[in-house]
């Protein structure tokens, strides 16, 4: 297996992009990535596009080819693959692209993620189909309700408080104020978060990430090729993926995402590092409880002690282990299938020193992208 590097990144604005269609959003991220990498376009050998539900969100399938077409690649006839794994689609697309380069099959590939959700009124219903539609959602348990049951059990078992969840939201909103592309660029107070209405008790409005439009692109190249294009290649040291039972009720333990535990242990092994070696991370805070559980399942904290990290400021921008420097899904926005790639963009920017006002120090960054309530987990470890 060859070393694989990120040589260019691009990201659209995240939010309610009323004047941009699916194609516009993708292209805005794609062009930025090509410019960032200094590519003409002809160098691209394959496209892997993470997208959860274009069929339902915009009524269009076959979107990998559509993306390539509108990216000006039609006459180059490069193979394009859509990758779907719920809201882990982006992460899995990154992994597919990574494998394509690592294996020696391709030298330069695009890993993209895109979702246009605001053309339909039922964005959450569609996102909830990343849970078990027949045996969870039909029974009244959409994604917020499922994460709420996880949260309640975590609170009961480990003493995690609604305040802890609110602090995650406050932190991520604060980070997003420093990110020009974030959906929500305003600070919120703990009171605002705590006083927001319940969506699914104990989760409140400010515990839930907004589902939004957005696209992200990273361009991967083999180590050898990467050197031709950039002085600051960002290496993917490991990119692992794990699955678990689809439905929450089938899992071994509701308060642990075994897929995250499994994928991260494997990633640490491959990267030859330990959790303590991670300098900063982007984790899947689709709901604030998910960030706290991620601290635990990624090995940053002992099981049940995730809330300590937020309470003690460890994961704040100026803490020892900044998490979601971008603003996270909560404040940057959760463009479903784009999120996994968007996390990679943030980590690459941070490792390159291009993260502007939210720049943190670090050699090693980690991203965690989750599908549904944890049936898919992708962990990627990056380094300079």
């Amino acid at each position, binding site marked *: 297996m060859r070393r694989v590097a990120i040589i260019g990144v691009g990201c659209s604005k995240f939010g309610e992009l009323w004047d941009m269609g699916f194609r516009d959003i993708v292209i805005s991220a794609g062009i930025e990535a090509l410019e960032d990498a200094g590519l003409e376009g002809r160098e691209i050998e394959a496209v892997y596009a993470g997208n959860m539900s274009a069929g339902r969100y915009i009524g269009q399938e076959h979107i990998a080819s559509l993306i390539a077409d509108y990216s000006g690649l039609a006459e180059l006839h490069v193979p394009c693959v859509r990758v779907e794994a719920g809201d882990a689609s982006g992460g899995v697309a990154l992994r597919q692209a990574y494998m394509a380069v690592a294996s020696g099959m391709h030298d330069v590939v695009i890993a993209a993620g895109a979702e246009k959700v605001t053309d339909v009124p039922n964005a959450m219903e569609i996102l909830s189909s990343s849970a078990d539609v027949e045996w969870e959602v039909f029974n*009244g348990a959409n994604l917020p309700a499922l994460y*709420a049951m996880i949260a309640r059990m975590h609170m009961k078992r480990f003493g995690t408080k609604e305040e802890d969840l609110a602090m995650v939201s406050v932190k991520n909103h604060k980070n997003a104020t420093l990110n020009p592309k974030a959906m929500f660029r305003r600070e919120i107070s703990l009171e605002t978060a705590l006083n927001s209405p319940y969506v699914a008790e104990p989760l409140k409005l400010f515990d839930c990430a907004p589902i939004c439009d957005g696209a992200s692109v990273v361009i991967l190249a083999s180590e050898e090729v990467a050197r031709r294009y950039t002085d600051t290649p960002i290496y993917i040291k490991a990119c692992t993926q794990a699955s678990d039972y689809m439905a929450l009720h089938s899992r071994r333990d509701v308060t642990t995402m075994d897929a995250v535990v499994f994928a991260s242990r494997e990633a640490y092994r491959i990267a030859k590092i330990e959790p303590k070696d991670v300098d900063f991370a982007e984790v899947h805070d689709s709901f604030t409880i998910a960030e706290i559980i991620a601290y635990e399942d990624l090995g940053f904290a002992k099981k049940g002690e995730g809330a300590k990290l937020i309470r003690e400021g460890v994961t704040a921008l100026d803490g020892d282990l900044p998490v979601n420097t971008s603003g996270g899904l909560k404040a940057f926005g959760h463009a479903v299938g784009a999120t996994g790639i968007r996390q990679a963009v943030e980590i690459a920017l941070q490792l390159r020193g291009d993260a502007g006002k939210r720049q943190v120090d670090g050699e090693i960054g980690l991203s965690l992208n989750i599908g549904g309530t944890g049936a898919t987990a992708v962990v990627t470890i990056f380094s300079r």
Partner: protein
Amino acid sequence: MLPKFWRKIRSRYNLIGSHCENCGSYFYPPRNICPKCRRKGKVREVQFSGYGKVLSWSVVHDGVENFWLSKPYIVALIELDEGAKIVAPLDCNPDEVREGMRVKAVFRKFGEDGEDGIIYYGTKFVPV
């Protein structure tokens, strides 16, 4: 949606799940393959008693469309007496739900495919 719902009516109405005679595990909804034993498993159909206890729950304020008339409604993670777990609606006062509360299955309406469409029925739970 109609054939998809119809296909599983037995399991929805009567909590019919699976039991693996090789390892003793119970599953709901039914599975064709035991995830513990895989090819060594002996999976048989089983009807659950309908009794269980609440492990976790949520009072849902912004929920699925078919439940909009009952907002806020409760969904619960329930452990059936046989051991399988299920996520199902729980019909009771939000203030009376407790962890470990005993519940039993009842037959209720889940919703409908609009005014002209079919009506969905299934199993909900109420306190014992």
